[in-house]
């Protein structure tokens, strides 16, 4: 296969963070947040380990879900040979390249398994027929093996896609794109299975008696909305900071806005379907999970999610002009990122605080610590690389993209 003479669609200096630019400080700021958050977590967590582990789990899941959403975004762009999104693909690649960092941030949770997961307490199954029946799946060694498999699969996929895409910046070999496209279909299946099982292991098994066959899709829907929201914010912020100003155009922003609109509606569809079937059948072993979230102050959070994760963005993002301006899209993105956090908080925290919403300093500290690591890792990669896949064969197509 002969490659045609390299047409340079974009010069490298148009797509890197110039020296002295304020974005060069992002890794340092992230690292400082991580250290600060980590210290607060250590001090307050020692006094209240149970709260610490739940807070850490929420923040860990929030940032991990963004990375997994990014992985899905890039995989399906390859699988369907999407052209428009090439200019924002590297942002996604950078976000999912943080997966090995997320694996390290998972480790602290292992010290709190018994605080988090009732089935992991020795003897828990003795007087509990359901736990006994589930024990072949819900036991600590198998739980650890599964976690290793999840992170192994994700690390393999993220490193493969990240490294080959970076390598193409140097070689310009179009065969790389073809190879990654062929691999994208099976990779999506692997991601779907591991992400589903991981959400069941880490969220559903907080209440090991609960059943919901829809939960994996629900977690996926949230993770994808979260990532597109992050991508919208980052793309708009880059333009605001004078990076990729001529590369990412209002046309790309509009498509990101469409995704945000569509998938916040998809999240609502899945979330409501899960609730609806359980509410309608009204079987005690299913409905107690929602009952806990519809009592006391948790009911307010449930209503906030309905209105904030679906209703408000649905009407806000409907118009065309809102999606094409950087700052209005970024407002929608920030809002949905916040709602995605509330969503994960709402999934996890009622198990710890069934009496009502009990915000804790540790929630903030864990968020700052995990988020600091996430931002530092992504910011560090951004400094070392082109912000766009410079020699992807379809880059010119993406640069010229226009909505019809």
């Amino acid at each position, binding site marked *: 296969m002969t490659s045609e003479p390299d047409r340079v669609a974009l010069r490298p200096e148009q797509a890197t963070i110039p020296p002295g630019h304020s974005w060069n400080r992002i890794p340092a700021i992230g690292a400082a947040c991580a250290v600060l958050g980590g210290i607060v977590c250590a001090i307050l967590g020692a006094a209240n380990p149970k709260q610490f582990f739940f807070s850490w789990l929420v923040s860990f899941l929030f940032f991990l879900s963004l990375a997994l959403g990014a992985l899905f975004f890039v995989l399906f762009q390859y699988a369907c040979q999407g052209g428009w999104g090439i200019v924002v693909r590297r942002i996604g690649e950078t976000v999912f390249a943080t997966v090995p960092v997320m694996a390290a941030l998972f480790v602290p949770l292992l010290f709190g398994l018994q605080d988090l997961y009732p089935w992991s307490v020795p003897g828990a199954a003795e007087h509990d027929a359901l736990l006994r029946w589930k024990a072949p799946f819900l036991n600590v060694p198998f739980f650890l093996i599964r976690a290793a498999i999840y992170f192994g699969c994700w690390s393999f996929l993220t490193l493969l896609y990240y490294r080959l895409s970076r390598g193409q910046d140097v070689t310009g070999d179009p065969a790389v794109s073809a190879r990654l496209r062929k691999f994208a279909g099976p990779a999506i299946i692997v991601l779907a299975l591991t992400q589903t099982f991981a959400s069941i292991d880490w969220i559903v098994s907080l209440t090991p008696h609960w059943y919901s066959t829809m939960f994996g899709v629900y977690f996926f829907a949230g993770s994808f909305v979260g990532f597109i929201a992050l991508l919208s914010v980052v793309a708009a912020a880059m333009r605001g900071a004078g990076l990729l100003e001529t590369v990412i155009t209002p046309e790309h922003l509009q498509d990101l806005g469409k995704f945000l609109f569509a998938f916040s509606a998809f999240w609502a569809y899945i979330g409501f379907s899960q*609730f*609806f079937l359980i509410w*309608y059948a*009204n079987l005690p072993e299913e409905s107690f999970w929602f009952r806990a979230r519809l009592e006391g102050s948790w009911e307010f959070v449930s209503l906030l999610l309905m209105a904030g994760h679906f209703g408000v963005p649905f009407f806000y993002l409907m118009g065309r002009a809102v999606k094409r301006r950087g700052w209005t899209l970024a407002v929608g993105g920030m809002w949905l990122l916040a709602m995605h956090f509330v969503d994960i908080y709402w999934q996890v925290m009622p198990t710890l605080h069934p009496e009502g919403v009990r915000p804790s300093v540790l929630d903030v500290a864990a968020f700052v610590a995990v988020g600091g690591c996430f931002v530092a890792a992504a910011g560090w990669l951004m400094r070392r690389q082109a912000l766009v896949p410079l020699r992807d064969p379809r880059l010119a197509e993406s640069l010229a993209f226009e909505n*019809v």
Partner: protein
Amino acid sequence: MAFMFVNQLPPGPYWGILAEFATPADLYHACERVRDSGFTRWDAHTPFPVHGLEKAMGIRRSPLPWIVLVAGLTGAAGGFGLQWWVHASAYPLVISGKPYFSWPAFIPITFELGVLFAAFGAVLGMLGLNRLPMHHHPLFRSKHFERVTDDAFFISIESWDPRFDPSATGKLLESLGARTVELLES
């Protein structure tokens, strides 16, 4: 049924003027000039979508999204309201021990009717805005125009455009590179 839109023909002996162009690029630039000359009642006809042509023609954004929004919200409100009335007022029945007004049970039909009405709004709104269906059109009298679905590109300017003049408009189109220019009777 009289609700269908009737195509209004401009008064006078001519329906308008039809110019044929050889390539999409010729058509595109000709459209820019026709737009800049201040014509308002005119159209371009191509065998396939030409990207950016709507800008070259200066077409304003379609009001169709608003029609779809209003239709969708009407469907959703109607679906919800109908179930509310039926279940809580007209025929109150206890179903699996739930209250008469059990809003979650109403959501699937609310959603479906919202989607259905939005789709009706989109299709019927599009037809209405385009004055379709239309069983005949004066353009079809042109022999050249048969190639519009094949390999030719056209601009038609209607005679009820305030700037229309049978000879001057024809000369303008010729100067823009038209292959043929044809005056069509109404």
